[in-house]
């Protein structure tokens, strides 16, 4: 169907053979307008006839019809786009409104479908035009020789250096050096100006809100957690510290934590059957647990995703981002994956009303490992 069909008979070529310049092509015989014996002289096009292989008038007429049909389709689809736009009003102008996800989906399909068809129609029409109405061009032009002659180069260099000498830049070192020196502070200024984009890290990354005696609440509901809430073996709760508003000391409303505080304080509370703790746990780590309840930071020490998946049978905590796996029964040591540090453990106990409380801050810096994460204060 394309001009690839007018290939030469020995067939081994890849179809580009029809692009040979100056070789006769079946199309060329019909290329030139009638009434001329010397096509070269009378060729009306912009390019020499041996480089343009025109299509027959008959072919061009057919193609014109096809292209126009595509443009008409594009026009109708474009009108359809406006119809689709006004057929689906936003909320408040009655039904069906795009605020309903299902209706919104239909609106999206109607708008996108008509727009895509309009664009496709124009593209198809233009392609038919380029392929069957315009001649097939095989124009050649020379590649420019990009490098200048050595004469030109020499002349340029000579002129440049003579001018530089004339300006005094090369001959007066004091001028040159002091000018360069004067630029140095200005060059550094933009970097210095960025200083106030944020605070210095200090030891901010090493401390969290958690402190001795702070109660815990369930993430989402803000309900304070009692030991009894984790009575069942294998139970797991995601918890935040209880930060009270007015009324203080357990009488006040639980406050919403900022995302910054959430990202640092969030813990997994896990109930592990007493005998399942591995001997690898130090005595201190065991002291930080309470009746089989152990609290670890939920933020993975790899790059900071929440290590949210807990498998109660194997006591493994898995981070779904990069699959770091921690053993909750063994101080949250890394058993698989790219993380290196165990999840920091939070020392916990209960207060006299039976609520779970923290007994201090995390054992280590929370979140992704950084330069001085494992260094003391």
């Amino acid at each position: 169907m394309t001009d690839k069909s007018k290939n030469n008979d020995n067939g081994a070529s890849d179809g580009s053979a029809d692009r040979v310049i100056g070789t006769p092509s079946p199309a060329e015989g019909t290329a030139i307008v009638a009434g001329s014996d010397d096509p070269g002289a009378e060729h009306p096009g912009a390019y020499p006839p041996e480089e343009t292989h025109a299509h027959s008038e008959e072919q061009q007429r057919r193609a014109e019809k096809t292209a126009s049909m595509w443009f008409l389709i594009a026009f109708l689809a474009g009108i359809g786009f406006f119809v689709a736009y006004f057929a689906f009003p936003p909320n408040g102008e009655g039904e069906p409104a795009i605020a309903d996800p299902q209706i919104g989906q239909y609106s999206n399909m109607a708008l996108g479908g008509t727009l895509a068809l309009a664009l496709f129609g124009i593209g198809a029409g233009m392609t038919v035009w380029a392929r069957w109405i315009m001649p097939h061009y095989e124009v050649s032009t020379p590649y420019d020789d990009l490098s200048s002659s050595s004469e030109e180069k020499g002349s340029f260099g000579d002129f440049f250096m003579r001018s530089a000498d004339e300006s005094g830049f090369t001959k007066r070192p004091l001028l040159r050096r002091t000018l360069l020196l004067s630029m140095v502070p200005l060059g550094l200024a933009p970097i210095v100006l960025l200083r106030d984009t944020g605070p210095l890290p200090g030891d901010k990354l090493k401390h969290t809100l958690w402190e001795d005696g702070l109660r815990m609440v369930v993430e989402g509901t803000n309900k304070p957690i009692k030991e009894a809430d984790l009575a069942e073996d294998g139970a797991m709760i995601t918890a935040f510290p209880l930060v009270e508003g007015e009324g203080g000391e357990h009488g006040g409303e639980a406050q919403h934590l900022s995302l910054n505080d959430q990202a640092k304080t969030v813990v997994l509370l896990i109930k592990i059957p007493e005998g399942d703790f591995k001997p690898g746990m130090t005595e201190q780590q065991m002291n930080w647990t309470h009746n089989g309840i152990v609290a670890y930071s939920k933020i993975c020490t790899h790059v900071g995703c929440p290590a949210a998946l807990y498998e109660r049978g194997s006591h493994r905590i898995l981070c779904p981002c990069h699959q770091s796996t921690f053993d909750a029964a063994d101080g949250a040591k890394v058993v698989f994956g790219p993380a290196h540090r165990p999840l920091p453990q939070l020392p916990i106990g209960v207060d006299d009303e039976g609520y779970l409380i923290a007994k201090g801050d995390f054992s280590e810096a929370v979140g992704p490992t950084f330069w001085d994460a494992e260094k003391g204060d």
Partner: protein
Amino acid sequence: MSTTTQAPKALRGVGNWIDDRFHLAKTGEKNLRKVFPNHWSFMLGEIALYSFIILLVTGVFLTLWFNPSMAHTTYEGSYQRLNGVQMSEAYESTLRIDFDVRGGFLVRQIHHWAALIFVASLVAHMLRVFFTGAFRKPREINWLIGVGIFTLAMLEGLFGYSLPDDLPSGMGVRILQGVMLSLPVVGTYVSMFLFGGEFPGEDIIPRLYMLHILLIPGILLALIAAHFMILWHQKHTQYPGTGRSEKKVVGTPMFPGFAVKAGGFFFFVFAVIVGLSAFVQINPIHLFGPFTPTAITSGLQPDWYMGFMEGSLRIFPNWLDFQVFGYAVPIGVLVPGLVIPGIIFGGLAAWPFLEQWITGDKRVHNVADRPRNAPVRTAVGVAGVVFYGILWLAGANDILSHTFSISLYWTTYFFRVTAIVGPIIGFIVAKRICLGLQRRDLETLEHGYESGTIQQLPSGEFIEVHKESSQDTVHVLESKTAVDRIDDEAIASVEESESDGVEAPAARGLKGRLRAKLAHWYTKDNVSFEGVEAHTGHHLHHGAGHEEHEEMAGSH
């Protein structure tokens, strides 16, 4: 006789008015006559340009409603299912675009699809340029600009993905921050300054927004303009063929042929992107919910172009993490998060210069290589593609594990091994295929092609008749000049030092010897076409066919 239509008076008026001020008629005509060679693979870069234009237009539309603020708010909008949920204003305004602005959902999806296709077409275009050696002199600078565009496009995509502040987008920012923290000494400072404090803070989205809609697109626009001006000035490379040479470019003129074809192609690209946006849902942020640092879903996947980084973060082991004086150096984050992308982008940028140094080829190349004729380059490229592809697959190891019921950890072990072994196998296989194709080319050039016609000789023997290849095929095959492009001196010095132990002056010093060895490695297996002339081979099977050739020649 002339059938040329007179230009309308208004147009002539405008043209004259402009020309009186800029003297443009001559340069104008020269540029309208600019020749563009034809090949399907030259359209890959066009796709990238067109999707970039679509990105600019749709991006401007989205800024009319998007509010890049991390201030907290409780949603009370049109989308019933999230009513009463705490979220940032960024997420809220994205929901508004989706459910209150007619066509907003569509334009957001067009923007996202166009971004995916932009980066994909950049990669495909870059591979085409790499494998055909189109980056060689005089086009090295345009290659570097291209690598810059590719790098910035990925960052631009990542930042754009982060703006709506939905759950996966916030998690992407979290991972970015985790990687930043791993930088020795300065990591915590970089993170604190970028985020205006601790993660997530309230500054990161406004800052990413500025980078995403102003700084990076500005630089991209400048780089793309420079890319095209250089292309325009140097003219496009072409593939070998009759009439095409290092001195002469053959193709379609800019006006009218190329302009109309390229215009039509722009509408096709736009139509495909809009069609995808209409019928294939992408990034449905209303289903993901707002970001909180403590929630996550499994099976989370980044946009495709970040997949290789996700994969390298997943499979890189923690064995190499160490401490210096108690300070942590998390190699397990540092290497996959920064060093591996650095090697990929740095290697891409360095390759033209490395290859030029090894081969000593300082000549100008306007005719592109056929990949088989540069087997080592092709093999290095394939090794790179395999490495990237393995990391990319590893970024979906949880999905693969789930879909094919394979143990998750085994997928990790598998990718750890294949990330190293795969590129080596890829290199060897690709190089062997190239060399095999070279031998076949040599055979075809000398003996013509197998015609499929079986003849019986008087002796009773059956043979297959070989026929002469077309002129164009011969031209393509003869374009191979692989061996002589190497600096002879470099080769000689290797042979000398190997044979009698006396070093040639050029090979003195570690650098010279390394270069000689690399040059040897680069070319040693190449099939030499030197002195080969078309259809001169005396093939055993040629006897009967030869006569036929002469008959054919006679009948012309």
